């Protein structure tokens, strides 16, 4: 299984914000593990989806030269469950970004099921902090190669840019 919890980017503004979506399907095994007969997306994986959206935003800001690590979940407040058939929308906004890392404010919603329901449903508010680990205050050293941004993550951004060009 690939450890990738977003399907595609739908908006990406370098150093500022990114929005990614994930379509939740009943075929996903993990949905059935938490509560038998009541499949939901575990909140921990919603945080992971937000971390991947935000992590790519933070990494791109420095052309993926930094190893960007999720250092802290400052706050995660959940307002509703996410069920199969829904589309999760992860929106990450950069609050602060500097040579040491970044702080991100994230909002999670789901797209409305019917055209009549205009507003997206609010799922969660998530605050994340990322560290550029080679710049860590403790002076710890890490391997030279960038083990964070594997191809499966950078391909997501490439796909978004290709799609954007096609639309133009």
């Amino acid at each position: 299984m690939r450890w990738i919890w977003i399907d595609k980017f739908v908006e990406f503004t370098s150093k500022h914000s990114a929005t990614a979506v994930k379509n939740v399907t009943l075929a996903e095994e993990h949905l059935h593990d938490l509560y038998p007969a009541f499949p939901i997306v575990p909140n921990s994986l919603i945080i992971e989806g937000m971390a991947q959206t935000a992590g790519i935003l933070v990494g791109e800001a420095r052309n993926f030269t930094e190893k960007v690590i999720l250092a802290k979940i400052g706050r995660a407040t959940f307002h509703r469950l996410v069920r199969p058939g829904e589309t999760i929308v992860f929106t990450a906004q950069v609050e602060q970004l500097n040579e040491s890392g970044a702080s991100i404010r994230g909002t999670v919603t789901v797209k409305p099921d019917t055209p009549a329901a205009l507003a997206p449903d609010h799922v969660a508010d998530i605050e994340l902090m990322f560290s550029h680990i080679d710049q860590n205050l403790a002076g710890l050293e890490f391997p030279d190669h960038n083990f964070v941004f594997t191809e499966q993550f950078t391909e997501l951004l490439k796909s978004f840019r290709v799609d954007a060009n096609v639309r133009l």
Partner: protein
Amino acid sequence: MAMAREEIFKKVQAVLVDALGVEEDEVTEDAVIKDDLGAESIDFLDIMFRLERAFGIKIPKGELIPDNVANDPNFVKDGVVTPAALAMLKQKMPHSDFSEFEKDPKLDNMSKLFTVKAIVNYIQGKLNS
């Protein structure tokens, strides 16, 4: 923008309560960020981000907390901060009280320089400069 010391302290207190999940009454001026409030190294970045937001300031790398001192062989010998490093630290950290540390400048004691009072001093200096 000048701000009364008590007002700065209250804001710093709120930052540390949020960043470290401690109780408000634990955050006294003399509390040591690591030893008394349980901060880990990654928390210091979080604290700096939160201070920047709370006070609308920028904290340049190495200004509030000098980086990489512990790993520099010129600064630490046999687990003790050298006189040259001590002089450098005092110059870089006028917001910290070195009187106790100077008596026993072991690297392990360095965390005691980072108190709530040091942060309040730093912010006060920054806002008044």
